[in-house]
């Protein structure tokens, strides 16, 4: 079939105009609205779905218990396309709706940085999952963090490896992206303070097909323990396999991706016996167990950090609004900061003045494919 240019133009024009015509007016209801910037397209689309799952699960629980301030709570989500301009656009679109009282932001720190100026301007609370420590230390009073930041992960890895495993010659392997670099730096600093400065600090670029040079560097350094910050599960799995193939068996304490479901599937036996810090660990507390059960029932999937933080964010936020008794931003803020001993899926929330709710990590261990909770390390400073 030959499509002439004119026919094509007509179809194209119709296709472009249709969505605008199809958009129906949003019904105004008596609900309490929470906005959410979440990736629906782009590389983080699937984790984005899990984030939505966690938020919705918490929302249902809140509404079943009667809602907040007498109204049911509604989630309004916008796609941030996993890009910086995308999250700015998504946030500003939501910000334009004046009946949204608070927001859920991104788990990616660069995206939070990108939207921070607009958040400051708007002056309403935003719950985030990004772990760059700088986010809560740059004077923005509207960011509230629902995962322990990277300064803690580094310290916990160091603490566990040096004090519990008794190893002092560290090799650090980290991705050169924002997450990996910040993590690697935090770990190196923490090790320095524990008088076990690293013997190797090796960065690598994401999406590498081969890690032989990195593995050989680890071997050559004579390290007796390995600390890692891997962003992508493919890279982690390839590295893990090659590590074992080339005969490296030293203990390994890694960032949360080390025990992600995907990593376990890809790497299989290569990751048996590894340790990881994980803000979410099913067996770490009663609240975590309850969350995991509820999540599995609702979605037939295993939960992970993508969904646990959004679950906690919605729960804490709704509780804070209820306690504040109003939707006025300043009062909500005070109520969140006053949250103490709140048991969430990620752990016990005790907010500090900067907006960080969690100050420690769980250590888990890969016991032949199942993730087992080892201990929780918390810092009170």
């Amino acid at each position, binding site marked *: 079939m030959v*499509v002439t240019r004119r026919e094509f133009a007509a179809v194209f024009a119709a296709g472009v105009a249709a969505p605008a015509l199809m958009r129906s007016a949003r019904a105004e209801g008596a609900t309490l609205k929470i906005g959410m910037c979440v990736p629906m397209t782009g590389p983080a689309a699937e984790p984005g779905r899990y984030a939505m799952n966690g938020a919705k699960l918490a929302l249902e629980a809140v509404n079943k218990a009667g809602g907040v301030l007498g109204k049911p709570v509604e989630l309004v989500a916008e796609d941030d396309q996993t890009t910086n301009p995308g999250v700015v656009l998504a946030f500003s679109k939501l910000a334009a709706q004046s009946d949204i009282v608070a927001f859920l932001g991104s788990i990616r720190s660069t995206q939070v940085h990108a939207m921070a100026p607009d958040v400051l301007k708007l002056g309403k609370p935003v719950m985030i999952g990004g772990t760059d420590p700088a986010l809560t230390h740059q004077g923005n009073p509207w960011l509230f963090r629902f995962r322990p930041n990277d300064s803690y992960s580094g310290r916990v890895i160091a603490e566990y490896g040096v004090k519990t495993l008794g190893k002092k010659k560290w090799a650090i392997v980290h991705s050169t992206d924002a997450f990996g670099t910040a993590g690697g730096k935090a770990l190196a600093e923490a090790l320095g303070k524990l008088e076990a400065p690293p013997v190797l600090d090796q960065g690598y*670029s994401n999406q590498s097909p081969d890690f032989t040079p990195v593995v050989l560097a680890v071997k050559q350094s004579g390290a007796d323990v390995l600390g890692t910050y891997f962003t992508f599960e493919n890279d982690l799995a390839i590295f893990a396999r090659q590590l074992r193939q080339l005969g490296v068996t030293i203990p390994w304490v890694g960032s949360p991706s080390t025990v992600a479901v995907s990593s376990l599937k890809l790497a299989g036996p290569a990751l048996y016996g590894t340790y990881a810090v994980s803000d979410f660990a099913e067996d770490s507390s009663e609240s975590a167990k309850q969350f995991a059960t509820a999540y599995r029932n609702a979605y037939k999937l295993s939960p992970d950090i993508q969904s646990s933080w959004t679950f906690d964010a919605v729960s804490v936020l709704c509780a804070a609004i209820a306690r504040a008794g109003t939707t006025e931003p300043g009062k909500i803020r005070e109520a969140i900061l006053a949250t103490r001993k709140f048991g969430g899926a990620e752990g016990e929330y005790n907010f500090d003045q900067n907006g960080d709710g969690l100050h420690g990590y769980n250590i888990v261990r890969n016991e032949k494919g199942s993730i087992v909770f080892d201990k929780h390390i918390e810092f009170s400073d």
Partner: protein
Amino acid sequence: MSAPGDQLSLARTGARSGASPFLHLGFWVASLVAVVAVATLPFDSYAINVLMQASTFAVAVFGLCVVLGLCGQINLAQAAFFGFGAYAVALGTTGYHLDFWLCLGIGALFALAAGALLGMSTLRLGGHYLAMVTISFQQIVTLVMINAIGLTRGPDGIGNIGRPAGLQSSQSYLAFCVAALAVVGYLVWHLPDTRLGRAMRAVRDNELAAGVAGINVYRTKVIAFAMSALLGSLGGSLFAGGFTYVSPDQFSFAESIVFLTMALLGGAASPIGAVIGTSLLILIPEWLRFLKSLPGLYLAIYGLFVILIVRFMPDGIWGFVQMLAGGARRKAPAPLAVPPLRLEPAQAGGNYVLQVKGLRKYFGGLKAVDDVDINVRRGGVHALIGPNGSGKTTMLNVLSGLYKATGGQVLLDGVDITALSAHARTSAGLGRTFQNIRLFRSMTALENVVIGAARPGNVTIEGGASELMARALAALDFVGLGGRAHESVTRFSYGHQRLIEIARALAGNPTLLLLDEPAAGLNSSEKRDLHDLLKRIAAQGLTILIIDHDMTLVREAAQHITALNFGRRIADGDSVSVLQQPDVVAAYLGSA
């Protein structure tokens, strides 16, 4: 490798040079209204952000309009240049507390230099190789942005970027961006009508012919790249000030592809197309949010659209619109009456306009031209004949500088041109036409001939656009096509296209005119017209060297003939005797 211009933008035809002052005025009024509207109307932050992204991206896409749309060179590193501008402003205002404008300028200079450098790689490369160089450059820049933490603050990016004093509020800054867009858009809109713009278009349409018509192809390409980089950097600087946060992942190869798609979608050759393409590709994701439910679906459709657009709308949306509106175009202005063409060939050297001594051109073991001497006397027509494969066209290509001679010497009017490039020889006074016609297919007859007229070294012109136009028109009149000056060359018959080629060469006032098989494909009445034309040219004192197979034409038109066979000269002398020589006859007809 075929010329990219052929198929990329044929929509640019018609009376370009006749754009009325009304149109210019309309543009500025519209721009002023837009700027004021943006600055004063109440926009919510969402709309401001969308417009900010669209306007800054559009400036970068204008850069692609220049290098790709106008000059036909592929540039897959536009995001890197965008990044240069963004980082210059980001680092400058946050780390060194420099003024925004100063940072913008530094970024622009840096990008200009980098773009020129990239352009210099075109000396040896084109097409896919050039694409690869630009991709490599882009990848290296991204890697440096991420890893050179000391310099660029690495993957964390840079926040709290400053804006120019007085433009602190988002709306005023946006108004400024829109104003910048209007100014740059105006310049890019009028670039095709300038000498540089015409040179770029010629390079895009037919590089070989452009060189031979006197355009310094290499320098034109370098300038195109530099301009593209400059605009990319400008867009990036504006972007950084607008969003006040930048990180390396925004300046990757994927973004370069986005810029490229924006340019192609709207129509690479026109700034209006660029704005359309940019706006659509920023707005469509916003409109199609309902498709976001299934991850990948939206982008899959996006990829499909790219294929469909390339297939059905090669000139982009704007090109398509122009094509639809083609019938409604206003009438071309009637050509003015101009004084008849004057040919004033130089007379510096002695009796001989062209002296070829011991010329050799070997292709590996094949001796295409083997130790040939030719002396072309001033005035009149000298013919070069020989059966197919005798080396005639190779000879002509060596003479015009398209091939480098393996040995020997070529003197034009006493000046040794053996080592000169094609366009340098044209400057020295050589003009030629091609066996397979090489006109600039996106241009009108007049525009084609104007390029010839703009030959550096043309003493009949002092300079100035109107003089060029007048000379070009005179040349077209001389070959009998003055009445159709404003038509696209694709509308002319084969024979007439050949005449336009001759007019293009004549317009430059050459010292020697090389004609490569001008009679090929002409019917007998067209051949008679050609003969007349040759006589009129010779009557003004211009020397002609002609290659042709048509013996009747050669016998009637040429006074002097040189015959080649198997790359060697087998006869040289006045027409009548040469054509009677037995070995010449044998070469053509075979021995009995």
